[in-house]
């Protein structure tokens, strides 16, 4: 009995926090807009018994999904989000790997401090940190003042309100999510393997490619997915740092929801986004499972 309860607990959790909200969103995506509270129809009226349920059921259809295919805006926004997510994941990996590598090679007594430094930014609200980037990247901002002061540039650079600022914001925000799994993988690396490789005539560079990279592959995969998946749906960073021409699906979703008051189409956009993300999420879970198995 206790065993069943223990197994049931995570499933109940999943049911309450993922499956039920998912069904609600799915249901709204099959509804039509209405000028009412809430702004969609039909809503389930249980007081009318079976007839109410039948009416409700017959009012649902897939026309919002058909609508998404009729306007190029939506697939362009999905593709643009995909592009931004792929590029920023790659940059985060390139920046994060040397950091994680350095941390794992540091002397033992230094490591807790270094780990602390990676986590430290979380002590400040995410929103405030993104706003701080606005002050740094603005036309009259800190970065331009320093660069002009040093004589590197004569005219201020336009970075804020461009895609460059979005990339900077995303890489900065998600870097810890990349560094931590990489560090976890690299820390476990057995030094004797590298010594053996060098004894057998490998250069250090070659040993890095043949041993360190493959053995940290699970960290690379885990870190990349932890960055890629949330960046796909990112809304705050492109809104605060991006320009009017930064097209991301999170912003399109906002417009559907707020400007058009079209909750059904907004829900359909969200369901399609989830469908796109299911593939990497499943891959991520597989990777986690493999890692868990190899650890035990």
């Amino acid at each position, binding site marked *: 009995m206790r065993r069943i309860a223990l197994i049931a607990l995570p499933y109940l959790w999943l049911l309450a926090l993922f499956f039920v909200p998912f069904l609600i969103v799915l249901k709204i995506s099959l509804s039509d*807009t209405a*000028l*009412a*509270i*809430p*702004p969609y129809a039909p809503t389930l009226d249980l007081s009318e018994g079976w007839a109410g349920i039948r009416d409700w059921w017959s009012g649902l259809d897939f026309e919002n999904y058909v609508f998404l295919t009729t*306007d*190029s*805006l939506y697939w*362009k*926004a999905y593709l643009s989000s995909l592009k931004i997510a792929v590029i920023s994941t790659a940059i985060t990996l390139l920046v994060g790997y040397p950091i994680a590598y350095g941390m794992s090679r540091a002397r033992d007594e230094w490591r807790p401090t270094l780990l602390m430094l990676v986590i430290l930014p979380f002590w400040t609200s995410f929103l405030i940190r993104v706003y701080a980037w606005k002050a740094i990247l*603005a*036309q*009259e901002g800190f970065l331009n003042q320093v660069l002009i002061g040093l004589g590197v540039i004569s005219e201020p650079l336009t970075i804020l*309100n461009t895609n460059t600022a979005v990339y900077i914001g995303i890489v900065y925000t998600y870097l810890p999510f990349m560094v931590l799994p990489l560090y976890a993988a690299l820390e476990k690396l057995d030094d004797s393997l590298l010594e053996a490789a060098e004894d057998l005539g490998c250069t250090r560079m070659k040993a890095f490619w043949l041993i360190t990279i493959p053995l940290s592959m699970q960290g690379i995969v885990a870190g990349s997915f932890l960055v890629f998946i949330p960046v796909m749906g990112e809304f705050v960073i492109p809104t605060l740092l991006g*320009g*009017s*021409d*930064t*097209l991301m699906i999170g912003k*399109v979703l906002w*417009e559907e*929801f*707020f*400007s*058009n*008051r*079209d909750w059904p189409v907004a829900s359909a956009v969200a369901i399609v986004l989830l469908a796109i993300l299911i593939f990497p999420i499943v891959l991520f879970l597989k990777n986690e499972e493999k890692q868990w198995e190899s650890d035990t």
Partner: protein
Amino acid sequence: MKTNAILLGAGLALIAGAAAAEEVRVYNWSDYIDEELLTRFEAETGIDLIYDVFDSNELLETKMLAGGSGYDVVVPSGTFLQRQITAGAFQPLDKDKLPNIANMWDVVSSRTAQYDPSNAYSINYMWGTTGIGVNVGKVQELLGEDAPIDSWALVFDPANMEKLSQCGVHFLDAPAEMIPAALKYIGEDPDSHDPDVIAKAEAVYAAVRPYIAKFHSSEYIEALANGEICVAVGWSGDILQARDRAAEAENGNEIAYHAPKEGAQMWFDQMAIPVDAPNPDGAHVFLNFIMDAQNMAAASNYVYYANGNLASQAFLEEDVIGDPAIYPDAATLDNLFTTTPFDAKIQRVVTRLWTTIKSGT
């Protein structure tokens, strides 16, 4: 030390207890009130006031249509108010609880009745126009002494905008006002609900889009005041606030506002009580407080918007009541236009067009 902590705890509990007694939650536009009024309200009525702000009608409307916003007083603009009344989002006002309603100005209330028939659900808070704010010095430097700062041509003629882009131009991120402005510029009906007419706005924006630095509905006040930008299409009072901030900072930026001579949109921000307001009685007390002639005058003197309160005009400062940018003369008033709400289908066309204009997609 420990006793201090206990005392502090007891004090906090007392404060919490008082707060539980009665509170009113107000959701108003940002930079839209003299904050001294908020303290005065609490002192006079003993009701705790929780005051939150927003900067777009769309945001407010979503909260209203979702229901359960928890606010007692909200401030939608005319067309949005009308749609939300239809959706059943507001409760009718109990005018017996609003003796100060006698102070209201029929010039305004006859116009707001277009959105809220017989003003059953709302009172006017402020009204204003959507026009152009300029940094006079910088614009004249780029366009010469006779720069058309009182015409839509300043921001819709690509020849002007190409030069102005050097010093920065912001537009409101509000399609319900920016598309009518473009239609007015090309001589179309600004209140058109015909998709073919509305679509003509796209070409107007396409020509000047490369020169627009940003679409945003509240950042331009500060940006205009500190010289980061030199032109903003925005709301009258906001730009006049920028003018005053620049004057206070003595940074050499001289800001001016004009309702363009081709015609500018006139809008009304109305205070209303959500149907599910937790404290409708407190909400009425707040509305009555706001309609007090001196209080309303204090708000207008502070934010540089005209109000719909006739009695308050006796207490308005000369640079408010005497400024035609705030209280337009009869001729200008005739030149202002109002708009009516779009239905869902046309709204989608408008939003989509606006996305195209902003993102080029």
